């Protein structure tokens, strides 16, 4: 065989091999005469081609085809504003620390893009009078239900709540009709008992709530509490004006509708309340009872904000303790198994779902939920050393053999 032909064929062969990929050739040093020797039989075969070509292809697949994966990063034109809850001494309050929520620059836990600056925060529900709660929640608070200050303390000190959510249900005219002034005294007491920030909630009575929140805002002046809530059916202007005057944050509550949420936000903004003092509550339905609507609502709101809709760029409140309204959470049932486990799990799953959909601040009732959610957030924010990623202590690839019977 002529040298020229050999050369041409060698070139062709190398091209072919390269096209099929992955046959190691670069690191092999072959002298010219060896090459001729090695290539002899191949060239002999090449003459008989094409039926031998598939064999070369099969051979190429004896090694894995190489593939690269690069993270698909996207840029969002908008971002969620950061809302600060609670004020320390230097800010004119008396809280030990400020809880910051919101400020997202990407969707929840898309940390391959970036880690959103603030972690989700957790408040626990406290009521200003003993009320009926699911047994599995009640058992943790029986000793403190007579006194909201003790109740709040237990939430912060024993169960790790970042914030206390004080619900002044006794102000409801059909319950005890406690006056705004007396309700405000309870707020003062709780502020003295704990150094965590406060969410102050009403009874849901549209006439009484604005009056009560106004009185509470005044006694809590400078503490940057969250007033819960302003909505289109109550005197939201009164609540907004109190928040502005005494330096608080307002919850804008709407029942399950993105357009109504947008309208209400606009109304509050038009009253001169800055975005940094608004948190949205677009309604959290319980697992199994409309949670599907909440998922899509929160995802749409968060996406709209990131895409630049400035009327929807506030953090989201998720009262996940609404999960306890689901009968599966509290009803005795042999079919469903022990309600002591089922109840808190129902709340946990509701909260995880709204957290993955875009919630920033969570209202919870059961200590187990707070513990689980905080642990998850810890994991989802942990810096991982890339070397470590592929050498986990528990080898997950051993699951087939290492799970017991």
């Amino acid at each position, binding site marked *: 065989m002529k040298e020229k032909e050999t050369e041409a064929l060698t070139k062709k062969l190398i091209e072919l091999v390269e096209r099929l990929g992955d046959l190691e050739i670069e690191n092999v040093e072959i002298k010219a005469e060896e090459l001729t020797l090695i290539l002899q039989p191949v060239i002999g075969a090449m003459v008989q081609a094409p039926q031998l070509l598939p064999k070369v292809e099969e051979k190429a*697949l004896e090694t*894995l*085809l*190489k*593939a690269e*994966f690069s*993270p*698909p990063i996207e840029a969002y034109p908008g971002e969620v504003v950061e809302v600060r809850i609670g004020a320390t001494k230097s800010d004119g309050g008396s809280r030990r620390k400020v809880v910051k929520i919101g400020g997202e620059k990407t969707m929840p*836990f*898309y*940390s*391959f893009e970036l880690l959103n600056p603030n972690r989700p925060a957790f408040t626990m529900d406290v009521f200003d009078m003993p009320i009926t709660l699911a047994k599995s929640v009640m058992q943790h608070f029986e000793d403190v239900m007579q006194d909201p200050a003790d109740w709040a303390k237990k939430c912060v000190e024993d169960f790790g709540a970042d914030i206390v959510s004080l619900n002044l249900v006794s102000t409801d005219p059909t319950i005890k009709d406690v006056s705004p002034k007396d309700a405000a005294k309870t707020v003062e007491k709780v502020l003295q008992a704990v150094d965590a920030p406060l969410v102050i909630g009403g009874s*849901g*009575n549209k006439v009484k709530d604005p009056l009560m929140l106004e009185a509470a805002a005044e006694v809590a002046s400078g503490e940057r509490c969250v007033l819960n809530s302003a909505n289109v*059916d109550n005197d939201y202007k009164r609540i907004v004006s109190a928040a502005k005057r005494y330096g608080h944050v307002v919850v804008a*509550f*709407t*029942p*399950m509708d993105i357009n109504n949420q947008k309208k209400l936000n606009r109304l509050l903004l038009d009253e001169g309340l800055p975005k940094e003092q608004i948190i949205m509550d677009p309604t959290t*339905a319980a*697992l*199994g009872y*409309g*949670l*599907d609507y909440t*998922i*899509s609502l929160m995802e749409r709101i968060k996406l709209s904000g990131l895409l630049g809709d400035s009327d929807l760029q506030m953090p989201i409140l998720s009262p996940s303790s*609404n999960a306890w*309204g689901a*009968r*599966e959470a509290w009803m005795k049932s042999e079919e*469903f*198994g*022990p309600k002591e*486990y*089922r109840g808190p*799990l129902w709340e946990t*799953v509701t909260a*995880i*779902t709204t957290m*993955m*959909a875009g919630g920033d601040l969570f209202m919870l009732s059961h200590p*187990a939920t707070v513990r689980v959610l905080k642990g*998850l957030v810890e994991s*989802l924010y*942990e*810096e*991982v050393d890339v070397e*470590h*990623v*592929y050498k*986990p202590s528990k080898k*997950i*690839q*051993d*699951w*087939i053999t*290492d*799970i017991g*019977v």
Partner: protein
Amino acid sequence: MPEKASLLSIYSYLPQTNCGECGEPNCMVFVSKLLERKANPEDCPPLKKPKYKEQMAKLVELLVPPIREVKIGVGEDVVKIGGKEVMYRHELTYHNPTAIAIDVSDLMDDGKIVERCRAVEAFSLVRIGERLRLNMIAVRCASKDPDRFSYVTSLVARSCKLPLILCSFDPKSLRAALEGGQVANRRPLLYAATEENWREVSELAKQYNCPVAVFALNLGSVKSLTKTLKARGIQDMIIDFGTHTEGGLLKESVNNSVMVRRVAVQRGDKDMGYPIMFIPAMVWMGEEVDPVTTSYKEAYIASLFLNRYADLIITHTMEVWSLLPVITLRQNIYTDPRKPVSVDSGLRTIGSPHEKSPVLLTTNFSLTYYTVANDLESAGIDCYLVVLNTEGLAVEVSVAGGQFHPSDIKDIFSSVNMEEKVKHRKLIIPGLAARLKGDIEDSTNWEVIVGPRDSSQIKGFLSKYWG
């Protein structure tokens, strides 16, 4: 980047005759049905004519979802997963709900294996008119013994009709199970092809025409595997990039899921266009695991990944309290977000009510209505049920949000001549609407009785307060 299905792109491939032969008024309506996956290209008679052959092929190609639909098993119990086309459920209804597989170890006693398989198959809970089930059995080759694995998979196959997952990284064990005879014709999922065993496992997948899972701990390797297996002629694959259940690694699993789905759906990466699986059962690894806290953890880890594109999960516990929230979440996620939230307002009769029967009130939120109506029916209560238009909101929300209008009750009463239907003037309202008792009394002039907070308690309530 491949062409994306849109109203206009789909329309461009249709004959555009507006003939109405498909049963729709015009082509555009048909297009919107195609886009929502409520119709198929074959439903267009003109398009099936030979001259449109090319357009038909292009349309079918256009409508292929970016995430391949993979079928596991055969016959009635076949499990279909994947087929996804969007990142968020508000864009288009998710279909093919996450399949839930329960694991069986080949180290279990034979009797226990049979018992467990039957329990998985028999598991059934009815929620809002839908029967919720567990879908598959994942047989683990924990013995590392191909003969034992082959024997146990046959035993499992004989014990239930559910589709199977054969779990072993050892091709010899997978081959033994497939050659053992009983399971190959059931088209099980082979778990898994890895960077080490992919030659043998992909050979098995081809030989027995089985779907196969690919497993690797980084996405480059996953892609390398899907690419290679595809070049070997395998189409039905499922991706497993590792289910980390704790520490910072959990974050990696969450990230991987979003990245894989995003490159497939939004960036046309066909090598990543396969269903994703997670294995929450991982939490049971190790010697000393507490059954309660571990069942609890398994449920919330499963829930976390159900919220991040899990198409298939393998779990371990059979405790109903732990499975119930998971299957309920699955039902929620796979509910059509555009379905009506409400039922018609007005008066309903439950059983055969008469002039002394109780009159109860509820809202027109479909979930509330069906729950209350079911409870009343199953308790055998004859009564009238007034359904109030609360704009499709539940009791508590509508009372708080002002959509629960007492004056509407009066309107319903007068429109159906309620005062002629019953002799008494007593209305039982939901416990969660207690705050409106006075308002309702003022507007209707009826006596208002505050009922229980949950309709499951109505039976006991009525026997106590209704003579």
